[in-house]
């Protein structure tokens, strides 16, 4: 009887967005009618007994970003759905398409659905999933991404197209960005910095906020996770709606955890608290004009291991000899006391796009950022409530870009950028500032041309930057005086690239990038005791700019649809490479003796490769392995470069079941990570020898369920399954304590 009243059908096919290949075992749900089907081996589906009406259709598949759209059914309907297929193999990104954004650059992305199963991670540790990306940590709560051996001043991080302003130079300063607010995070590993302002010598991290879409109803997602190590909880909520007047989105995240735990003991005072918010509004004035308003606010308190806060070299030696750090207690606590960091970062961005025909695009953006960073130390006479460092940085940024597609497969992109940075120390510390007040004006312009000749893409681009920097420092000698500097800097970069698609199975690309980086304020004017490593750091105002030349070569292959291979090889020479060098001098002060570190220049060479292979054993089972190698060498002094990531191997066994009873997209994974000991460093370059290599085992399980209009995803992950006791070379906490022990994370995500 029902069939007569609901005689309609929805049928069609599901295909891969980048290759056009049909996708089988994709689930298609007609939400309001609770009807469903699964695509067959040809990627086809049919849903019968559909009544006339309006429905939400949800399409999902393991390894693809799920899609949803709203349809009006008044007759038999046939549709084709394109899914962004990524999770399985090469995490490739749309940047490589021959379309609006052609590129010869190598890049890897993490999408929202994937990140939803790692919701407990911060930005840097989230990116560890990408081969070639490591993290520089100060405990697990404070982490920075390291791409091909470069980080901090040499890596540009873009939050919604805006270079992250703030104290990015600090090795113990996390980028103030919440990864859960992002739809997609892309790491461009190569020479990609041309389009963006910033001092990058190649690699760029792009964080794109969630798209609002065109759905007229209220949609969004809610996420919750619990983490056993640190007894952490997190809550995330996103709401979005699009109507004729306006499209809007509101996103928020709350996270809190207490003392983390190493294999054998609690890491005292390593709790974290975070509260973030993002608001977005979008307005299509007409077919040509589109404006967006974006506001995001990042707020966090990061506890720093109590036992890592020490006095002089005598204290450091005592700490290095201990197995368990000072101040370790048997009890767990959520409280965060000194030493800790309190960070706030607010971003406001206004963006307007003007499309002329389908060949021209104008883009204008204005952004305002406020970065507040306070670092609290253990101080005498109740001064622990006064920050030992308090910096405020206000940046104002303006950008105008132009893109044009011409005949004969030429496309052209150019832009102009202006930035004003006002950095000041707030006078509440009672301590001489580590880095000075300064005011900088930056002007930049770039141009890029791309040409497609049959199966080959060619790219050429150049960039020029000019900076006027005025600095006000305070002298160390008594009486204290203010000394001002006013300097101008210029920087140029250029890049050329070629990408060739041999056939559906093989692709190759080569990039050559030339870039210069002007010394940063901390490298020039740092002056004082850096508590974290009980050492005195001194900048050099006479430093020259760095000049870098980087070659990147990549090869991707698909052997009979069973073995997928990707290799990226890079070679980078950096002349006048600025680094912090321990001196032979030990300085005597009333607090005892301290080692001295000075910012110096040398000629460096970085050589490395990232290789990833995936073997599809059967339709449900695949193995994935990746290996990263890096060699950092000081050419001038003929010795290794210090603090370079060691070699790294990751492997996983994966089993996927498209449907299991009421559950869909069921995934099971066992993974292993092996981090090699950093043997490429001299004992004289560090306080202690690098720690031994270590192996960590992990597990991941996840499943989906469609309950009428809700898509529920549950996941459980285990990290360091064996509760292995280890220390990591890139974690500054390794001087004092072991790294994290066993961790069990469980979570649930609801899409509505």
């Amino acid at each position, binding site marked *: 009887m029902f069939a007569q009243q609901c005689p309609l059908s929805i049928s069609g096919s599901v295909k891969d967005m980048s290759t056009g290949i049909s996708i089988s075992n994709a689930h298609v749900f007609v939400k309001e009618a609770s009807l469903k089907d699964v695509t067959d081996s040809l990627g086809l589906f049919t849903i019968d007994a559909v009544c006339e009406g309006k429905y939400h259709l949800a399409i999902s598949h393991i390894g693809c970003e799920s899609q949803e759209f709203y349809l009006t059914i008044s007759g038999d309907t046939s549709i084709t759905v394109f899914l962004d297929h990524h999770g399985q193999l090469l995490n490739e990104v749309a940047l490589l398409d021959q379309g609006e954004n052609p590129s010869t650059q190598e890049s890897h992305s993490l999408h929202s659905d994937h990140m939803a199963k790692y919701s407990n991670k911060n930005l840097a540790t989230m990116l560890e999933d990408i081969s070639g990306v490591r993290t520089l940590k100060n405990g697990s709560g404070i982490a920075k991404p390291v791409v091909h051996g470069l980080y901090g001043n040499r890596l540009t991080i873009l939050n919604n197209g805006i270079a992250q302003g703030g104290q990015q130079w600090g090795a113990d300063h996390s980028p103030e960005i919440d990864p859960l607010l992002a739809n997609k995070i892309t790491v461009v590993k190569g020479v990609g910095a041309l389009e963006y302002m910033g001092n990058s010598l190649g690699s760029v991290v792009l964080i794109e906020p969630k798209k609002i879409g065109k759905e007229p109803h209220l949609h969004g997602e809610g996420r919750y996770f619990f983490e056993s190590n640190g007894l952490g909880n997190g809550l995330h909520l996103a709401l979005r709606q699009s109507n004729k007047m306006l499209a809007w989105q509101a996103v928020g995240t709350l996270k809190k955890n207490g003392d983390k735990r190493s294999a054998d003991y609690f890491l005292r005072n390593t709790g974290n608290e975070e509260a973030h918010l993002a608001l977005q509004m979008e307005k299509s004035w007409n077919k040509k004009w589109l404006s967006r308003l974006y506001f995001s606010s990042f707020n966090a308190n990061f506890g720093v291991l109590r036992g890592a*806060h020490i006095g002089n070299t005598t*204290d450091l030696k005592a700490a290095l000899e201990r197995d368990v750090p000072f101040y370790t207690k048997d009890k767990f606590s959520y409280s965060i006391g000194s030493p800790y960091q309190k960070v706030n970062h607010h971003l406001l961005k206004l963006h307007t796009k003007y499309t002329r025909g389908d060949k021209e695009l104008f883009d204008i953006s204005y952004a305002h950022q406020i970065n507040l960073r306070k670092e609290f130390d*253990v101080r005498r006479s109740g*001064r622990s409530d006064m920050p030992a460092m308090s910096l405020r940085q206000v940046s104002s940024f303006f950008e105008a870009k132009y893109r044009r597609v011409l005949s004969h497969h030429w496309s052209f992109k150019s832009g102009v950028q202006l930035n004003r940075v006002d950095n000041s*120390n707030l*006078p509440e510390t009672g301590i001489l500032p580590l880095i000075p007040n300064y005011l900088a004006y930056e002007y930049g312009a770039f141009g890029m041309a791309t040409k497609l000749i049959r199966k080959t893409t060619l790219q050429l681009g150049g960039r020029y930057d000019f900076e006027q920097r005025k600095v006000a420092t305070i002298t160390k000698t008594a009486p204290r005086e203010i000394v001002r500097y006013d300097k101008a800097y210029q920087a140029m970069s250029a890049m050329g690239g070629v990408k060739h698609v041999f056939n559906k199975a093989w692709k190759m690309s080569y990039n050559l990038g030339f870039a210069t980086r002007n010394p940063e304020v901390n490298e020039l004017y740092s002056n004082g005791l850096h508590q974290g490593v009980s050492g005195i750091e001194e900048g050099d105002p006479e430093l020259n700019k760095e000049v870098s030349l980087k070659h990147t070569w990549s090869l991707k292959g698909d052997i009979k649809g069973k073995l997928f291979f990707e290799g990226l090889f890079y070679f980078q020479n950096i002349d006048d490479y600025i680094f912090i060098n321990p001196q032979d001098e030990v300085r005597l002060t009333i607090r005892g003796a301290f080692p001295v570190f000075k910012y110096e220049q040398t000629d460096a060479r970085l050589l490395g490769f990232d290789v990833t292979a995936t073997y599809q054993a059967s339709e449900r089972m695949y193995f994935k392995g990746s290996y990263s190698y890096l060699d950092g060498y000081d050419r001038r002094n003929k010795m290794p470069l210090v603090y370079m990531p060691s070699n790294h191997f990751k492997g996983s066994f994966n089993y996927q079941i498209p449907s299991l009873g009421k559950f869909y997209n069921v995934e099971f994974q066992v993974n292993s990570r092996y981090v090699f000991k950093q043997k490429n460093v001299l004992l004289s370059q560090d306080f202690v020898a690098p720690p031994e290599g270590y192996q960590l085992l992990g597990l991941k399980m996840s499943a989906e369920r469609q309950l009428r209009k809700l898509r529920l995803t549950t996941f459980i992950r285990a990290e360091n399954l064996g509760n292995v006791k280890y220390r990591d070379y890139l974690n500054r906490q390794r001087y004092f304590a072991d790294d994290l022990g066993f961790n069990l994370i469980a979570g649930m995500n609801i899409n509505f």
Partner: protein
Amino acid sequence: MKSNKPFILFGLFSLFFVACKKDDPKAPVIPNEEEVITTLNFTLTPVGGGTPVEFKFKDLDGDGGNPPEISVGKLDTNTQYTGSVELLNELETPADDITIEVREEAEEHQFFFQSTASGLSVAYDDLDADGKPIGLTTTITTQGASTGTLTITLKHEPVKDASGVSMGDITNAGGETDIEVTFDVGIE
């Protein structure tokens, strides 16, 4: 009609930037460095009268490269002295007395005296509210002639009831070192 709006907007914004080029960074406020200790004066007064012997350590530029000024005195054999530590911040005029702060937070501070000279021994003469020593006042006893060094360490938040700490053994003290100065000492 080609729209010139984008170019006009760009022009306005760049004017804004060029116009504001004249300003300078905010003058940094030279902080009132209350926590700085520049000077440690260790005065030994012979019990029963006599000229006090002074050991002074003064470092005005802190982390800066100028070496500290150190001066020592000579100790007599077989004498008992009352030792007294004074901490000052001489960047201020008049000099700021930091000894008061340490005395006010006596439970969180302890001085340690370590000597390599065989004829020198140091005993604590003061107690905090928990009955644990501080070290601002001490009794120093000398025996036969010898030479060596004397290291005075001030620990902030030491574990005073850890083994040996209250007897003057620094091994299990922990905490942060706020002061560590070494003097050459001669007993004759």
